[in-house]
Structure formats: structure tokens, C-alpha cells
């Protein structure tokens, strides 16, 4: 289990490759990669702020919970902060399990935790305009829905 919070870019394929070489019992790896979206076409960059003393504790906690709940062999999270331009990779998660169902469900659960509970905040900067991204109510609903699911 590993979590990394960093300013610098990372290479998704290298991360998956490093992750896979340490596995034994798994037949499936599922990964999710989040990138900077430019829906309006006018976005210059985003700024991601976080709460350093809390972020690592929270990410480790979510990843450990996910591993136990979905009986994963392993999982990891990388999340960047600072200034990121459109199409840059913001973050990724990877889960490994004997079979794909647990790897898919684990990755989704971990993402739902990250979206609503990890202390990151995004600000969009377009020219002179700056705006904090608002949390989506749907993200909270999706996280809560896990409380009623059994695996």
C-alpha cells in the first residue's frame, strides 16, 4: 500500500508497471487517472491546494479501508497539488485483486472516498478570472451509497 502527494508530474505506465511487479495473487489491475478538464476551452490552469498534515493520513486510511473491504492484494494513490495545465494528469489510483470485480469496485470506492473526503481543493484560473470548483452533490451521494452495499 502506498500513497504519494507530490507537486511533480508522474508517468502512469511506469507506475502500473512497478505496481504489477510486486504482485503475486492478483489477476487484475484496475486504474483510474484523473486529468485537468478544459470544458469551457478558456482554462489557463488549475491550482490544487491541500492540507498537508491531514492529506497523507486520510489517503492511507481510505486505501487501507479499500484493501480490506474488497479483499485486494494491494492498492495505491498518487495525487498532485500546485499548478496544473489542461490535460495534465492530476492523480491516479490502482487496485489489484485476484479477480476483476473486486479490483473495479475497489477502485470506484477509493475514488468516491477521495472525491468527497480527501482534503484537496481545486481553483480554476481563466485569464483574470479565478473560481474555486464547487463540490458536486452527486459525489457525496455516491460515497454514501456504499454504506448500503454488501460485497
Amino acid at each position, binding site marked *: 500500500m502506498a500513497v504519494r502527494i507530490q507537486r511533480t508530474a508522474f508517468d502512469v505506465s511506469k507506475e502500473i508497471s512497478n505496481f504489477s511487479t510486486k504482485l503475486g495473487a492478483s489477476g487484475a489491475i484496475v486504474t483510474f487517472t*484523473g486529468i485537468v478538464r478544459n470544458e469551457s476551452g478558456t482554462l489557463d490552469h488549475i491550482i*490544487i*491546494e*491541500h*492540507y498537508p*498534515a*491531514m492529506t497523507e*493520513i*486520510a489517503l492511507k486510511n481510505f486505501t487501507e479501508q479499500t484493501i480490506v473491504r474488497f479483499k485486494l492484494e494491494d492498492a495505491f494513490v498518487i*495525487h498532485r497539488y500546485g499548478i496544473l495545465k489542461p490535460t495534465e494528469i*492530476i*492523480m491516479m489510483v490502482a487496485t489489484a485483486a485476484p479477480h476483476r470485480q473486486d479490483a473495479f469496485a475497489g477502485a470506484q470506492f477509493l*475514488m468516491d472516498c*477521495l*472525491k*468527497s*473526503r*480527501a*482534503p*484537496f*481543493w*481545486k*481553483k480554476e484560473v481563466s485569464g483574470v478570472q479565478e473560481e*474555486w*470548483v*464547487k*463540490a458536486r452533490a452527486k459525489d*457525496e451521494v455516491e460515497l454514501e451509497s456504499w454504506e448500503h452495499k454488501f460485497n
Partner: protein
Amino acid sequence: MNSMKIKILYFAWVREQVGRSKETVETNASTVAELVDELICRDAAYGAVFKDLSQIKVAVDQELSDLNTPLIDVLEVAFFPPMTGG
């Protein structure tokens, strides 16, 4: 109750509206809600920030908490908007 010193952190638009990222306060508050009330009494800027508490999240000693969380032996309280990671 004896007063205690608590470090308060602010993030994202809460930090911008308060006008600082951290401060240390001397307080008698026994819960997060009482701490919020004390801050509001201190300065109008806090009144604006804490006007709609549904838009504010709180962590007590780096753990997500709520307004009813007691502040016993607490070192750090953080206020911030709902998170937007991922």
C-alpha cells in the same frame, strides 16, 4: 473552564475570506460550534465566512469532524469548503 490555545487553519475560499491561512487563538470553547461563535463575535469577516455552515467542513486534529465535536486537549482545528479532490 480554563482557556486553551488552539491553532486554527483555513483552506481554499475560507482562507481567502478570512484573510489568513492560520492563527492561534485563546479560547474557552468546549465544542467546534462554540469556537465558531467566538470567532464570529470577534470580527465581522468571520460572520461572512460562517454564514452558511452547510458550506463549511471542519477537521479536528486532522480528522473530519462536525460542529458538535468537543475540543478537549485539541491542538489544531481546520475550516474549509467541501473537498474537490480526484
